[in-house]
Every structure is written in structure tokens, then in C-alpha cells.
């Protein structure tokens, strides 16, 4: 392993160093790299530039260089800070619950039983469905005060219909996110379970471990790596979640479910305030880098030797 083999971040522009120029002469890699850089890096550089300008699409005459003014503005704006908190709480809650639920799913379906294939299939379905359709289904078939099955049940027990999304918006969004991401966690955890040597479990049984002890002392320690991986990947996807919030709550009521991506979306497409939106985007990208750095280290250790 070379001493300088640290994880690369996207802030590190390949043309400028590290990768060395040879990579561009590698006809097998260069095209893929070029596409990714042009489509993802170039726009990000533009975003950084935009973030330094006062620029509202509706008032082009008002455009001017603004230095770090946009950054000052967004950090003074309670909406942005709130959305950061919202993003973080969604992420923490949804990731932890998804992990837990995913683990339960995985433990439920790991061993063979009647119809295991079908059960697994049903369990991963939420992850496959287009997110906006998943959200639509929840909004209208489950949570809706009028058509929703939940309120029908409530009414059977003599309750009055509840506006779930209105009254419990955060819980509603987290519920949908967990519904959608727990299968993702399950898939990775299942892979971990499959990698667990049956001999080990059998040996534990020979040594007198009951199902609980077996899970606690053999299975869970073995799964640690997999739980870490799924948790971290899940965090990165969930922190950027947009589709479900767009469809389910539009960030509301109030700003209860406005996370950073949705706030940026609103800033761009409802306020047309490019400067502020870009500043927020830069901040969230920088924030993501912290997590990604850790993730890459973890991935690196999971991948074993590279180079």
C-alpha cells in the first residue's frame, strides 16, 4: 500500500494532480471518468460560483457579486438552520429505525420456511417502487383522512378521523422512509447472514447457546460490518431524500418536514433565488463530504487491498 493512498474526495479535481496524467491515457477508464466529471463536477463548480452572486431569476437586473453574503444570509436564516436540523433528525431516526426493522426482516427471512421467496419479494418491494408512487400510495391509501385505511380502522374503534400527515408530519415522513429503506438494510444484512458460517452457529448450539444467545454472541457481532455499511449508505441516501417529501408533505405543514434538499428545491423553483440556493447546496455538499470520507474509509477496509 502506498503511503499516500488516502480516499479521494470529489473536491480533488483529478486533472490537477493525484490521479496523474496517465489515467487520461488509459482508454478503458478515461471515457467513463470524463462523463462523470463533466456531468457532476463541472456543475458543482458552477454552483460554487453562483453561490457568490446575488441572483434572483425574477430580477435579473439586480444580479451582482455578493462575496460570502449568501452564506451569511443562510446562516442567519432560521429556515435553513431548521432544515438542517430536520434533515439530521430525519436521517438519524429513519436510519436507526430502518436498521432495526431491516435487521428484524433479515432475521425473519434468513432461515428457510414456507414461501420464503415470496415473503422476501414482498419485503423488498417498497424499495423497488418509484419513490413518488410509494409516497402517493401512503398519502392516499394509508394516511389520507378521507380514503385512508388507517382512519377506517380508527373509525371502527369509534375514533374520529385523524389528519395523520397534518398532525404527525415528521412521524409520517419517517414512517414512509423506514418503509422504503428498511428493505435496503435487510438486503445488506441478509448478505451478511449468508456469509456467516453455519458451522459457527452449529458450534454455538453444541456449546449450549439458545436462539437468543446465538443471535447476541454469534450473529450480531458478525453483522457489525454489514450494519455499519448499510447504516452509512442509508444515511447518505436518506439525508438527500427529496422525492418522498415532495410527494407526501411538500415540506409542510409549516416547515415541519422541510429538509435541506427540499428547501433548496423551494429556493430554486418557488423563490428563484439562485444565489441562496447555491450557497445552501455548497454547504450541504461540504457536510456530506464529512460523512462520505468516513464511508470511504469503511468501504476501503471492507474492500481489502486496492492498488
Amino acid at each position: 500500500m502506498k503511503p499516500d493512498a488516502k480516499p479521494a474526495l470529489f473536491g480533488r479535481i483529478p486533472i490537477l494532480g493525484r490521479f496523474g496524467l496517465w489515467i487520461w491515457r488509459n482508454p478503458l477508464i478515461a471515457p467513463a471518468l470524463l462523463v462523470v466529471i463533466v456531468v457532476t463536477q463541472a456543475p458543482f463548480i458552477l454552483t460554487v460560483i453562483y453561490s457568490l452572486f446575488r441572483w434572483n431569476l425574477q430580477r435579473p437586473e439586480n444580479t451582482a457579486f455578493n462575496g460570502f453574503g449568501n452564506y451569511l444570509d443562510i446562516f442567519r436564516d432560521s429556515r435553513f438552520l431548521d432544515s438542517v436540523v430536520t434533515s439530521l433528525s430525519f436521517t438519524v431516526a429513519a436510519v436507526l429505525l430502518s436498521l432495526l426493522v431491516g435487521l428484524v426482516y433479515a432475521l425473519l427471512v434468513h432461515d428457510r420456511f414456507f414461501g420464503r421467496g415470496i415473503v422476501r419479494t414482498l419485503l423488498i418491494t417498497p424499495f423497488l417502487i418509484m419513490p413518488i408512487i410509494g409516497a402517493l400510495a401512503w398519502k392516499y391509501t394509508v394516511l389520507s383522512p378521507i380514503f385512508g385505511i388507517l382512519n377506517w380502522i380508527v373509525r371502527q374503534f369509534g375514533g374520529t378521523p385523524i389528519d395523520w400527515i397534518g398532525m404527525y408530519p415528521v412521524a409520517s415522513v419517517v414512517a414512509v422512509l423506514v418503509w422504503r429503506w428498511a428493505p435496503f438494510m435487510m438486503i445488506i444484512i441478509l448478505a451478511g447472514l449468508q456469509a456467516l458460517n453455519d458451522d459457527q452457529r452449529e458450534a454455538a448450539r453444541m456449546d449450549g447457546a439458545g436462539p437468543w444467545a446465538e443471535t447476541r454472541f454469534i450473529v450480531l457481532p458478525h453483522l457489525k460490518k454489514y450494519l455499519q455499511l448499510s447504516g452509512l449508505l442509508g444515511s447518505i441516501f436518506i439525508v438527500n431524500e427529496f422525492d418522498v417529501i415532495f410527494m407526501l408533505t411538500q415540506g409542510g405543514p409549516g416547515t415541519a418536514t422541510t429538509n435541506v434538499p427540499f428547501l433548496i428545491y423551494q429556493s430554486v423553483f418557488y423563490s428563484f433565488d439562485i444565489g441562496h440556493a447555491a450557497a445552501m447546496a455548497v454547504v450541504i455538499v461540504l457536510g456530506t463530504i464529512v460523512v462520505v470520507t468516513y464511508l470511504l474509509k469503511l468501504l476501503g477496509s471492507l474492500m481489502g487491498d486496492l492498488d
Partner: protein
Amino acid sequence: MLTELGRQRASGGVLRAALAAGTVLAAGFGAQDALAQSGRLVIGAVNNAEFVAMRDLLPEFNRLYPDIEVEFQLVPENEVRARITTDITTQSGIYDLITTGPFEVPMWGRAGWLEPLDALMDDPAYEADDVFQGYLDGLSHDGKLYAAPGSAQASMLYYRADLLEAAGLTMPEAPTWDEVVEIATALHDPAAGQYGLCLRGLPGWGQMGAPLGTVINTFGGRWYDADWNAQITSPETSAAIHFYVETLQNVTPPGVTQFGNQECGQAITTGQAAMLYDDSSWAQVFFDPETNPHAENMAVAMAPVAEAGSKPSAWFWTWAWAVPTSANNKGAALAFISWATGPDYVPYAAPLVGWGNMPGPARQSQYEASSSYSEFAAPFMAVLDRTLATVDGVNGTHYEDTPYTGNQYIQIPEFQDLGNRCTQEFSGAVVGQQTVDEAIGKCQQYAEDVAVNGGYRN
């Protein structure tokens, strides 16, 4: 048919000539390219029933203009605004024709983003005299018309006469808000799935913002004083917001923060809501037995006011057709406008898709279009006429001086964001995320930011 065809063509012809000159000067487009009545025409419109129906009638348009290939995109209101505004402000040329309204049109006209349509007015075949002047005023800037009224509306109060009667209640012709809430409370019976009133709770300056705006006006409130000091926390404005939020909390269906124009309309046709304060374009739906099982029990009243004797308050809105200067096919766009808003559309379309799917009347002749229509239009026409006659929906119904124009909105670009953010906060207050005063405080802060950042106040 032949005469109709001829007239449409003629109208297009005059327009073409007139517009060609203006366009060449203004934008430097070649007249030939810009005004061809052929090719691809991309329309972006709000997905209201009248435009959905219009899309279904495209074969008729194509019979008149066989060489125009129409691509009609219909999107919910909040989304359509986002997409259209992005297109217009970046001059992207996505749309050749858009639905927009009196909030944006004067600003966009001034910015040079919309084509002037005065030529359309000058075309005798268009019968411009027939169009209500009030709507045209709202769509003009500096004496130039930038959009043609497609579906016009003013706000009014709908109610179920049968339910009121059963409860021994009567509705004044021009009720106050207190009276409305009193009646709504009497009729509100959630256990039976019966709700007193539907009122837009969906955030958005064009959704909750519209009825709320009129409540603020009639309560004597305003967004800014003459010096651009935000007035959300002023006693009048604050009282209006408190009233609106509490009404939503007390007498509306569950989930009201997700109810916009469409959802509230459904609440009436499904019999859930006893009353609805919303726009006049619903009248055609509500009074038509084909589209509303309770049609014969529907009645309307003037938009409620703060107290008896207050000056009438209502919002005016027009979904209007405009041609962006960045459009690629202005000729086809104009042809479509003249078809969709011309004097022949309603008489032709109403028998095919029903009165409920007609645009809100922007032309006097729509009321006289057929005897059956005038018959069922009679109950609400009186109220609408009176509203149109007494309310200044363009310059506002404020009691106090304001530095801005606009009625249920204020005509500055930043209002779109401000209105969205404030209504979002208010909807948060409706479901108890925060107190009304907290929401008002935030809204006040946003409004102050807009005044300063927008350069309205130093």
C-alpha cells in the same frame, strides 16, 4: 363552419401582421419563422378542469389548424408556476404558450419577457369588447396587454341551502365572517363526516394565500405600510391571520392543510363540506347536476367581509394565456389563444364537455351563450355581477395606503416566495406545529427581509 373557419383564419392574419412588426423590433425574430401557423406548439398550463377539457378538444383545434402539432402539459398549480417561471426568467424557450395571471403578467411584461397582445384586441373577429375590462386591466402594463384572459374568477361563498334550512339557518346575501363561522360551527359534525366549511389550507401564495389575502384586506390589514415596513404583526393583519387559522382548525375537514382549490371543490361535490369560500369558476361545476349531486341545493353569497358595512372584499384572478418572448412558435401560440379565448370557444365546447368544464367567464357573451346556461347561471350570476361591479380586484381592496399594487397578493417578484413561506408557516400553525403568533412573527421577519433585500426600503 366555413364562416367560423374563415373568421379564425382572418383573426390570425391580422394578428400576424401586427405582431410581426412588434416582434421584429422587440426581439429581432424573423417574422416568417415566428409567425408560422404550423409546427410544434408547447403549452404549459395549470391542470384545472377547464384546461383539461380544452386539451380533450384539441382535435377541433387541429381541424382549424391542421399543421400545428400541440403538446399540452398540465401540471398542478404550484408546479406549473415553478416550471413556467423558470422557463420565462431564463428565457429557455420551453413553452410557446403559458397560463399565468395578473400577479406575474405586469411584471413579466415590464421585464420584456412576454409578447404584447394588443393586436389581438384590435382584431375585430376577436370581439374584444365582449371581454370584461377589469380582467384586461389586470393583465396590462403601461397600457399594453400581455395576456388574454382564459378563465376568470372572483371569490364567493358557496353553501348548501338544504343543510342551512334543515338547521334553521339563513345566509345573508353579503355575510360577515362571524356569521359564516357561526353557521359553519352549527353545521360542523365530524362524526357524521359533515364539515362546516372548506377553506384552502394548502400552502402557496396562490392557494391559501388567496382567501387569506381577502380576509386580511377586509380586516383592515396589509402587508406593508407606505414606507415598506412589514405589517404582519399589526393588530389588523394579525387578527385576520388568527381568525383564518382558527377557522381552519375548527370547522374544516381533517387534513385541510393539504386542501387547495381542487380538494375543496371535491369536498362540496362529495357532500363533505356545507360551505366553501373559493373562486367563481366552481359555480359552473356546483350548479350542474351532471357534476354535482347536490346541484339543486347549491346557493351562493358574496365573499364574506369583516363586519356589516365593510366595503366588499373578494379576490380576482384570471388564468390568462401569454406568449413568452423566448417562445419558438409564436404564430401557433397566437392561433391557439384566438381559438381558446375567442368568442366561439364556449358555444362550441360547452355542449361537448359540459358547462362545468368551461373556463370561468371572462366574456359577457358566455352568460348569454345558451338559454340552459343562463337558467342555471342565474343563481350565481347576480352575486358575481355584484362582486365584479363593487370590488376593485386589481388595485386592491385595502383600507390603508400601501406602497404596492395587488389585491390578494402584492405585485413584487419576491411575493411569490414571501407568500409561500408565510402560508407555509400559517399551515404549520393550523396543525399546532407552532403558535399562530410564532408563525406571524416569522412571516413578519420574512417580509422585513424582502423589503430590505429587494431594495424597497433602505
